[in-house]
């Protein structure tokens, strides 16, 4: 057992949930990166001869009512959906981490103030905040959507990170660093952060998946990107054009299915990592 030297890697490679999650995400990364080579039209270009055509040899996933090629829309939509998840995930994780770290580490009234703010924002449903923010933006791009999603998604991260920091703070090596006069910033980044790395990765993955779901919901109620395409927008357009009643399944099945798969993949990845880092949860 050569792998035994590296316990984490050993369990990571053995963990089925982790492997499934990675496979799904890798597949969609491939779709996103290699897809444009096969996408023969722009997302909004008139591509097919017939409107609302079922999948055929020219338009592999059929066409929309506006004769757009659904396969091309699907490729570019997957790209922007990933972009939103990634950007919003980064923003949400960064804000939540910083607030949680500092609140937990500095403590005192600073902690109380930040936690009060966090608790207030935690109870106000973020979709409500998102709607009111997005509704007043005259122009919404993918980036703006990511920013507002990221800025409303951090409270639970802050709270969880704070309690983690509080428990780490009590450990011997942190006290030792403090007594030796190491600056708080250095302690946070050199002693506390590395111990939370696995946790941070998992938080990011959850934020990634959550952001995708929020973006889809926003797209669907008419607050999606004002230009461009996304998987959520595809479903909204399908719905608006009565695809359900008329049975244009090719218009809303691929987009919805891939969102479900991407987010499930992320959840699998998250649970897999949790089991790898957390021996108690492993299958016995």
């Amino acid at each position, binding site marked *: 057992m050569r792998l035994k030297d590296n316990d984490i890697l050993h369990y990571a490679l053995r963990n089925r949930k982790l492997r499934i999650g990675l496979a799904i995400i890798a597949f969609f990364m491939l779709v996103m990166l290699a897809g444009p080579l096969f996408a023969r039209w722009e997302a909004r270009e008139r591509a097919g001869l017939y409107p609302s055509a079922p999948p055929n040899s020219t338009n592999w996933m059929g066409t929309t009512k506006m004769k757009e090629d659904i396969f091309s829309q699907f490729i570019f939509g997957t790209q922007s959906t990933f972009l939103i998840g990634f950007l919003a995930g980064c923003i949400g994780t960064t804000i939540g981490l910083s607030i949680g770290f500092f609140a937990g580490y500095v403590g005192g009234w600073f902690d109380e103030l930040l936690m009060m703010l966090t608790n*207030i924002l935690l109870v106000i*449903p*973020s*979709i409500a905040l998102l*709607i009111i923010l997005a*509704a*007043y933006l005259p122009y919404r791009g993918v980036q703006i959507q990511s920013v507002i999603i990221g800025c409303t998604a951090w409270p639970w991260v802050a709270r969880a990170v704070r309690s983690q920091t509080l428990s780490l703070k009590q450990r011997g090596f942190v006290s030792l660093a403090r007594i030796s006069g190491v600056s708080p910033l250095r302690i946070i980044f050199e002693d506390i952060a590395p111990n939370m790395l696995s946790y941070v990765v998992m938080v990011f993955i959850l934020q990634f998946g959550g952001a995708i*779901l929020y973006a889809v919901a926003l797209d669907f*109620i008419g607050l999606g990107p004002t230009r461009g395409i996304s998987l959520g927008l595809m479903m909204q357009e399908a719905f608006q054009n009565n695809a359900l009643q008329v*049975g244009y399944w090719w218009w809303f099945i691929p987009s919805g299915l891939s969102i479900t798969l991407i987010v499930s993949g992320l959840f699998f990845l998250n649970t897999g990592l949790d089991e790898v880092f957390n021996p108690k949860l492993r299958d016995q």
Partner: protein
Amino acid sequence: MKKYISRKIFMYLLTFFVAISINWLIPRMMPGDPILNLISKLSRQATNNARLYAELNQKFGMDKPLFSQYLLYLKNLTQGDLGQSIIFYPKTVAAIVSKALPYSLTLTIPAILLSFLVGNYLGALAARKKMLDNTVLPFWYVLTATPYLWLSMLLAWLLGSKLNLFPISGAYSFSRLPSATLSFVLDYLHHWVLPFASIFFVQLGGWAIGMRNLIIYELDADYSKYLRALGAPDKLVRRYAYRNARLPQITGLAVQLGVVVVGAITTEVVFGYPGIGLILAQAILGQDYFVVQGAFLMVVLCVLGANFFIDIAYIFIDPRVRHSMIGD
């Protein structure tokens, strides 16, 4: 006890105050003149723009300093004046929102409670049972990852449009008027099943996963090991584990409420269900900002109320909270 409750009430009031302030602030922070934005929509219908502009300007006190505008807004709010709808003219926002609210509540409350109960039960059942766990766990993960609106669309397309088993639009048939007759109730339930199912199933997966993980932790705890060492039957140990695992799940319920709102809104849109979510979506499309803001307030108020209710319920469920209070 009093201290606990009054502290909670203070926090909720503060939160509500922050929410209504956000509701006031955001439109004013955004680029452009909010009143102009408002009537750019109206202008397609109304005849006298200048008069309308002056009227609205005065109503919101746009000519006054910001702080008095804020006070005016608060004053209107305390009188239940949420403004005037544009797309549903001449109805007031308060009237529209209060008419929609019962539909949303009768849809979401049963869905949340039932999925919580069933999900917890299933999760507890599957924990540490290899066969069951391996077969249902992936399914639950996929369920929680499903966008509510997509499940709604699938159900509407398959069961509604293809198999014609359920209606896919509205809360009752067009030909009917709400009444207390049996046939109306049946018709209402018939329309209720699919939107309910969409919210129920997506939620179900999350609760089951949460409970499964918690039970695994609890079965590993010292008290469980001790019980087993004493020779207690597996069923008894599990029952104790379940009682402990319930508490974090109830805390989770409070957190999840904000997420269920996403489901409720999008599901209502798919099924044309006349609740707050549908009103909100129509208002967004019609750029009817008063209605958007009114719906925002209603959603926040409901979630805050439910959170408060859970906080109070905690006193009765968690003996530790109860005992710490007797000490007060």
